[in-house]
């Protein structure tokens, strides 16, 4: 549009006054700019703000912020930290770009279009909360509390999750960190040593570090990597079991290029060899072991030769690993892993790792599995109310647990199946808080159908992730740099150093922008609207943190005085508890219909022309939550697919070729990525970094950048003991220029 006169002429015209006078009457008197004649001139105040705790990943490093006026300009590690110290990773640095990402959610939005194809309208918080509270209450009234499902993730999601689980009374909560990540590890170790293992291996003081799939360097948690590197600097030998030449494999003394899915066979053979050759920790097992004889008898079939064949690894190499572990026992760090939902036979593998640690006597000893003794703080949240067990989807008709070793919550597939069948009851309300089930949970189309059939879907997030396209109401949450909440406690990571404990609480490094709100405000307001006002445990997130700190004799004010971190004397972590035991043969497991002795369960192999799709971490991204970060995208804009170089030659593919994928069920990737040819991957597998290829155009940086591996994970396997997912049982062929290319190794 161009008006038919010049500005000069218009301003000189007689009509100016006639036009301008009504304009001034149509304008509100308030303005964002005000006269302030005494305003200080010149450059802005600079300051360092303490109390930050990172959440670019869940490791949560301690931070300080450099500010100019209200603008956060740089994030650094808190120099007082005995955890990450002044170091932070690339993602931690790039937090600024999350804070100020123009694509971030800013105001409550209402979907006036349809789920999956939204049309957003900004609405007031009051309207948004009325809608959320009203619609969830309607679902509850019509179908019962159990009809509300919750998909939470991250530190802000705990408070709302507890509200829905403990107060409203729905058992249907699925945390990705359990069911698509570490839950199997935790319950397998619980069934073996009575404790969830964390990543509590004393790597700085180990003589051998044993990683099964762990790829530190690509997977960066600052103090954990420091601890690993210190161990290597101190002379630890490194064993890495991985089908791929990972960053850790590149530092290893022994790289076991194992056939995917066969890890349990490998571990059983090592243990059988150690026992047969009396290289196991006999005294430790006598004192702390339970069911060792049954265990030894139960794994005796696993000779080195048998495992070598199954795992496609030389006999000599398995023996070499076993001898190395035995020679250095008990100072060996058998790493329990973290993301372990791989093949649907994972509980048995995790039990095997726990048993191997026991066979080597490597609990509570220098270099072994050693849980640090941290300080105690409060856990203020919603109180548990009495709720009937009858709506637990994890109970069969005989009222027995379907997945007896499930992590807390309800296995994801049980919730989704109930939602789709309406049996045993409908699931009609959905609260998604910080989780992105579209890119987290295998079976995207199934997840979409689940969301479609809901009466109401609400999402709370900082970014417009893929799942937010399915929301009716979308609420903008403050980021970790703009809020109080998480209390991080721990100890120094090298137990050879003076024992210290620390307590730090997240404090905002920048004021919240736009209309973003925190989890306590949002949850409480929904609770009021659902009729639970009298149950509200705290009025603000600051009150919650202060209550929790009070248990440790601290407060937010005191922590601020202490540069954000309180440090006190620590305790020696090496004393083994009197009641500690390693349950090698677990009778309860057998009673529940599962193997009492760790057992190898073979997994399906790739059909002809396909390779197994493996995925993992890249150092500059945390799953899919960082994919829209402009700095991190610049550092690694795509997720190249690793392809064995010999195969690439046969397939006519070269480095940099652009390819897409088709899986065993005919599902094609929406986008493409580039080929990375390497001898560092087995011929039966391909590999790509996880967390790319967002389908949501609102993520203007991350949309269609690389390939979304989860979109190709359509075959859903479920671990029988835990109900958690196995996510590496899908197979792909390549597509180049529209033509499907078979992968010849498996042909």
């Amino acid at each position, binding site marked *: 549009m161009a008006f038919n006169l010049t500005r000069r002429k*218009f301003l000189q015209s007689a009509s100016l006054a006639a036009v301008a006078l009504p*304009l001034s009457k149509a304008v509100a008197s308030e303005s964002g700019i005000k006269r*302030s004649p005494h305003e200080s001139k010149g450059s802005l105040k600079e300051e360092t703000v303490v109390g930050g705790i990172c959440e670019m990943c869940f490791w949560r490093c301690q931070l300080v912020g450099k500010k100019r006026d209200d603008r956060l300009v740089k994030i650094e590690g808190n120099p007082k930290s005995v955890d990450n110290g002044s170091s932070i990773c690339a993602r931690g640095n790039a937090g600024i770009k999350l804070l*100020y990402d123009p694509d971030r959610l800013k105001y409550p939005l209402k979907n006036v279009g349809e789920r999956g194809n939204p049309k957003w309208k900004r609405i007031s918080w009051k309207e948004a909360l009325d809608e959320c509270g009203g619609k969830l209450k309607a679902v509850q009234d019509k179908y019962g509390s159990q009809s509300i499902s919750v998909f939470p993730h991250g530190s802000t999601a705990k408070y709302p999750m507890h509200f829905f689980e403990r107060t409203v009374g729905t058992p249907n909560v699925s945390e990705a960190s359990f069911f698509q990540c570490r839950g199997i590890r935790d319950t397998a170790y619980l069934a073996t040593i009575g404790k969830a293992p964390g990543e509590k291996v004393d790597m700085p003081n180990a003589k051998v570090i044993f990683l099964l799939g762990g790829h530190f360097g690509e997977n960066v948690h600052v103090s954990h990597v420091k601890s690993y590197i210190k161990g290597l600097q101190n002379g630890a030998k490194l064993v890495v079991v991985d089908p791929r030449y990972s960053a850790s494999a590149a530092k290893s003394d022994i790289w076991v290029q194992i056939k995917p899915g066969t890890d349990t066979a490998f571990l059983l053979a090592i243990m059988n060899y150690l026992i047969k050759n009396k290289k196991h920790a006999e005294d430790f097992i006598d004192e702390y072991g339970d069911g060792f004889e049954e265990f030894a008898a139960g794994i005796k079939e696993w000779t080195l030769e048998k495992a070598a064949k199954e795992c496609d690894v030389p006999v000599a190499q398995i023996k070499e690993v076993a001898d190395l572990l035995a020679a250095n026992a008990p100072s060996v760090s058998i790493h329990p892993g973290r993301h372990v939902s791989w093949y649907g036979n994972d509980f048995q593998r995790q039990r095997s790792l726990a048993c191997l640690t026991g066979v080597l006597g490597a609990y509570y000893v220098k270099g072994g599995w050693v849980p640090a003794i941290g300080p105690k703080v409060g856990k203020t949240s919603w109180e548990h109310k009495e709720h009937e067990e009858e709506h637990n989807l994890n109970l069969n008709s005989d009222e027995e647990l379907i997945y007896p070793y499930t992590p807390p919550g309800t296995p994801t597939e049980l919730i989704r199946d109930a939602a789709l069948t309406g049996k045993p009851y409908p699931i009609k309300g959905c609260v998604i808080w910080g989780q992105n089930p579209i890119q987290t949970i295998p079976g995207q189309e199934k997840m979409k159908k689940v969301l479609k059939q809901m009466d109401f879907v609400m999402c709370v997030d900082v970014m417009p992730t893929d799942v937010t396209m399915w929301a009716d109401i979308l609420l903008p949450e403050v980021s970790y740099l703009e809020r109080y909440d998480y209390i991080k406690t721990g100890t120094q990571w090298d137990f050879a150093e003076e024992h210290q404990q620390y307590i730090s609480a997240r404090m905002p490094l920048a004021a919240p922008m736009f209309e973003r709100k925190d989890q306590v405000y949002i949850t409480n307001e929904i609770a009021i609207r659902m009729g639970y006002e009298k149950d509200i445990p705290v009025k603000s997130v600051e009150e919650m943190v202060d209550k929790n700190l009070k248990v440790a004799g601290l407060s937010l004010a005191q922590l601020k005085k202490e540069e954000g971190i309180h440090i006190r004397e620590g305790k020696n972590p090496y004393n083994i508890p009197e009641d500690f035991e390693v349950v090698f043969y677990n009778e309860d497991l057998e009673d529940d219909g599962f193997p009492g002795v760790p057992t190898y369960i073979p997994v399906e192999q790739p059909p002809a022309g396909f390779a197994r799709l493996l995925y993992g971490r890249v150092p500059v991204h945390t799953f899919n939550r960082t994919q829209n970060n402009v700095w991190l995208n610049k550092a690694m804009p795509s997720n190249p697919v690793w392809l064995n170089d010999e195969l690439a030659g046969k397939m006519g593919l070269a480095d940099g070729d652009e390819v897409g994928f088709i899986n065993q069920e005919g599902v094609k990737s929406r986008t493409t990525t580039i080929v990375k040819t390497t001898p560092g991957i087995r011929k039966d597998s391909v590999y790509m970094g996880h967390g790319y290829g967002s389908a949501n155009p609102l993520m203007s940086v991350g949309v269609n950048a690389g390939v979304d591996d989860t979109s190709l994970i359509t075959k859903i396997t479920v671990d029988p003991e835990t109900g958690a997912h196995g996510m590496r049982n899908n197979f792909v062929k390549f597509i180049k220029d529209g033509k499907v290319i078979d992968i010849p190794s498996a042909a």
Partner: protein
Amino acid sequence: MVHTSSTDHIAAIYRFCAQSMQYPDPSWLTNDYFSSLYGLLDALGGDNEKDNLKSTLASAKDYLEDLQVEHTRLFINGMPHVVAPPYGSVYLEKSLQGKYAEDVLVYYRSQGYALSENADLPDNLTHQLEFLSFLAEDKNQKAEEEFLSRFFLPWYTTFSKLVKKESQHPFYHVIISIIDFFTKEEKEYGVQLNEA
């Protein structure tokens, strides 16, 4: 404020433009507002634009919701993605709160202005227009010209093109064209003081 001079009239136009970029709300989208807007379009010779806008509004099932959806899509979060966040830093530094935002704030302060308590970010389009309105009211032609050329136009030009290209509702096309008219030619013609 009582408008008597040409600069006061310009100040009123800047404020009107600033108001028009706020989130659509019945508190200001009144009959008075629309008749003022139509009056301005008449004076500018924008008959076609006026007719087009009028007929779009008249035929809408819910004209307010249409404007709200369009504002959300263009300036907040929208499909396929937010079209044109109204913040200078986004165009100059691909981020909110870039150094540019700080420079704008320092400039406000240098002229004796500050952000109100509930203000948006300093480089928000609305605030820049409000600031220009104050400068016009102050008859501070030098600062007005300097602010337009140093701070406003370097990003606004890109923003304006984007909105005009992507806008699916004539309202924003009209408003952006009016802002164009009163800011873009400023450099060429200079601020017109009342010669009477």
